[in-house]
């Protein structure tokens, strides 16, 4: 038996998989050309930022904002003028090549942090190493590795950096054991988010637990049992069963279909940012996609995504969800993000500026390409098209007329599409909520985007710490707008969903069900909890037949 620090609960019976990282070999010879090394640094930083943005998004979607924030701090390090300044100085004043210049800067800061008398700060030196190593690997032209994991993998490593855990196949990994680390380590935090055991600070474990060794992990005691005998295996198998049962208590909600006691149907759907998110939705029993954010298709690239490329993505999602509704929102982006192939004007306030639908009207070709791709994909499933950020009925008319243009073109070209594709809109600009009655006559559905609705209505930037406390979903004005919107929808015979955070807010459920909100669309990991809370409401009941996806 081996013991370490119990850093995350749970039990695991699996197989040791060693995570061996290729050593970074740095050339310490003098640089041939300082301008070249500076250029290598510049492009490496840009590439590292791009990688980290992707990892940040993936982690945010997989595990949430909290866990993803570590990558935000990595990004900030790459923008740190002192850090980058030191690397440049190493190149300019000491003629070092870029990788070595980066390594020296890394060593400087790691040393600085390791001598701080604060455990938490010392642990941050691991982040510095992680970012610097990433930068070094890129500057050396290394490809990032894709690792393959067997079922029930228990990862054995010296340490697990945020980058390491971001690449893990979360379906196959059931535990972490590392040589260094403590309860505040990144690997501990990650294991807790994933709901798997972690035992850290097990010195020399890489030598002791070779690849393929069968292991039992006890995340409560911090004990590891290599090559366990049968009695022990039976014992722990039982422990795992009990543990999973407590988790499972939630999963009974997966196949339950709900409806209002009045007879009105009630759907619990999921929000996705890319097709990768679908697995979690299906696993959690989502009854559809209430919001498919399409921005990922347009970001992190130098040229516009082609119609075919977009069509393939929309088709894939539509097919995967078969009969279930897939609400796809057209591009909702603005000047706060950098899109190299769109000339965005310089705006003092990009959030109230040329963004989302307004930007799409400006970028006619881009908009029509997306609409055409959506229409073409519509024959493969139940696609609904949704327009964001509409404030006036004219904007809705304009969007619909451009959609008509696309339909006519496709017809002339002999390309099939579903002419009955439902068209809806986000209710997020207060004007739209106030005039919901007028809008309800001209769309097939509403989806309330509470995040922005609240910000616009209360004039609060919820990311601004000075005023964040004013962001109140339960402000009477917000409730009033939500009521108006849902009522207007029902009066016009259309459905109204909600895709903002408020849909998963357990305190809001009582109110929203009284208003008979037709669809709650939440992030994948919240689906079961949302169903659980909905079922607790008096006006909600479950019905016997299942909606299978």
């Amino acid at each position, binding site marked *: 038996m081996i013991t370490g620090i119990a850093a995350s609960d749970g039990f695991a019976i699996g197989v040791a998989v060693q995570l061996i990282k290729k050593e970074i070999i740095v050339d310490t010879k003098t640089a041939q050309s300082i301008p070249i090394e500076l250029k290598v640094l510049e492009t490496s930083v840009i590439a590292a930022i791009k990688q980290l943005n992707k990892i940040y998004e993936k982690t945010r979607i997989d595990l949430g904002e909290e866990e993803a924030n570590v990558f935000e701090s990595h990004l900030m390090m790459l923008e740190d003028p002192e850090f980058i300044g030191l690397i440049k100085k190493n190149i300019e004043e000491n003629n070092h090549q870029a990788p070595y210049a980066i390594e020296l800067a890394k060593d400087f800061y790691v040393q600085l942090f390791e001598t701080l008398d604060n455990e*938490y700060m010392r642990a941050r030196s691991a982040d510095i190493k992680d970012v610097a190593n990433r930068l070094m690997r890129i500057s050396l032209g290394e490809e990032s590795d894709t690792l393959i994991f067997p079922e029930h993998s228990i990862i054995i490593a010296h340490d697990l950096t945020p980058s390491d855990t971001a690449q893990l196949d979360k379906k196959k990994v059931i535990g972490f054991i590392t040589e260094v680390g403590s309860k505040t380590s990144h690997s501990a935090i990650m294991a807790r988010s994933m709901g798997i055991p972690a035992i850290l600070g097990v010195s020399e474990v890489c030598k002791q637990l070779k690849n393929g060794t069968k292991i039992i992990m006890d995340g409560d005691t911090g004990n590891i049992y290599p090559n366990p005998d049968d009695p022990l295996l039976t014992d722990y198998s039982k422990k795992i069963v009990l543990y999973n049962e407590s988790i499972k208590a939630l999963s009974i909600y997966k196949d339950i279909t709900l409806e209002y006691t009045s007879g009105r149907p009630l759907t619990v759907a999921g929000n996705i940012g890319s097709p990768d998110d679908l697995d979690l939705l299906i696993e959690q029993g989502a009854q559809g996609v209430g919001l498919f954010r399409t921005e990922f298709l347009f970001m992190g690239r130098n040229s516009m995504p082609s119609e075919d490329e977009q069509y393939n993505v929309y088709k894939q999602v539509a097919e995967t969800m078969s009969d279930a509704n897939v609400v796809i929102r057209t591009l909702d982006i603005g000047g706060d993000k950098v899109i190299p192939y769109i000339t965005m004007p310089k705006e003092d306030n990009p959030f109230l500026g040329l963004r989302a639908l307004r930007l799409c009207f400006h970028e006619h070709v881009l908009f029509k390409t997306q609409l055409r791709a959506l229409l073409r994909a519509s024959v493969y499933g139940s696609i609904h098209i949704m327009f964001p950020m509409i404030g006036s009925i004219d904007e809705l008319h304009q969007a619909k007329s451009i959609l008509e243009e696309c339909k006519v073109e496709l017809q002339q070209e002999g390309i099939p599409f579903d002419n009955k594709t439902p068209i809806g809109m986000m209710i997020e600009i207060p004007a739209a909520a106030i005039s919901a009655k007028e809008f309800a006559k001209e769309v097939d559905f509403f989806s309330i985007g509470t995040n922005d609705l609240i910000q616009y209505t209360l004039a609060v930037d919820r990311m601004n710490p000075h005023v964040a406390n004013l962001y109140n979903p339960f402000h009477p004005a917000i409730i009033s707008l939500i009521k108006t919107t849902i009522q207007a929808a029902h009066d016009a015979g259309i459905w109204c969903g909600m895709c903002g955070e408020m849909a998963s807010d357990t305190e809001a459920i009582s109110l929203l069900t009284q208003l008979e909100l037709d669809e709650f669309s939440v992030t994948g990991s919240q689906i079961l909890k949302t169903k659980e809370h909905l079922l607790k409401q008096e006006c909600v009941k479950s019905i016997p037949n299942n909606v299978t996806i």
Partner: protein
Amino acid sequence: MYKGKATIINELGLHARPASTFVKISSKFFSDINLVCNGQEGIAKSILSVMALNACKGDIIEISAEGEDAQAAVEALVSHIEEGCGE
């Protein structure tokens, strides 16, 4: 040159998250902003520099700024710290 002081009230001090918000705010200003805490010097726009200050709860951080928006910068950062850096 404009100067100000604030006492850290966060439980865990100026660790990663509050340090990030602190740096984001200082980066909005044009002025050069320097920090002193526990005898250590730091640059307000550098996340590593701010974290390395190891500013703990109860520590006093001195902020000095030089530039056209020096006063606004110092005032913004002082209030940010006094309000717990958004935590």
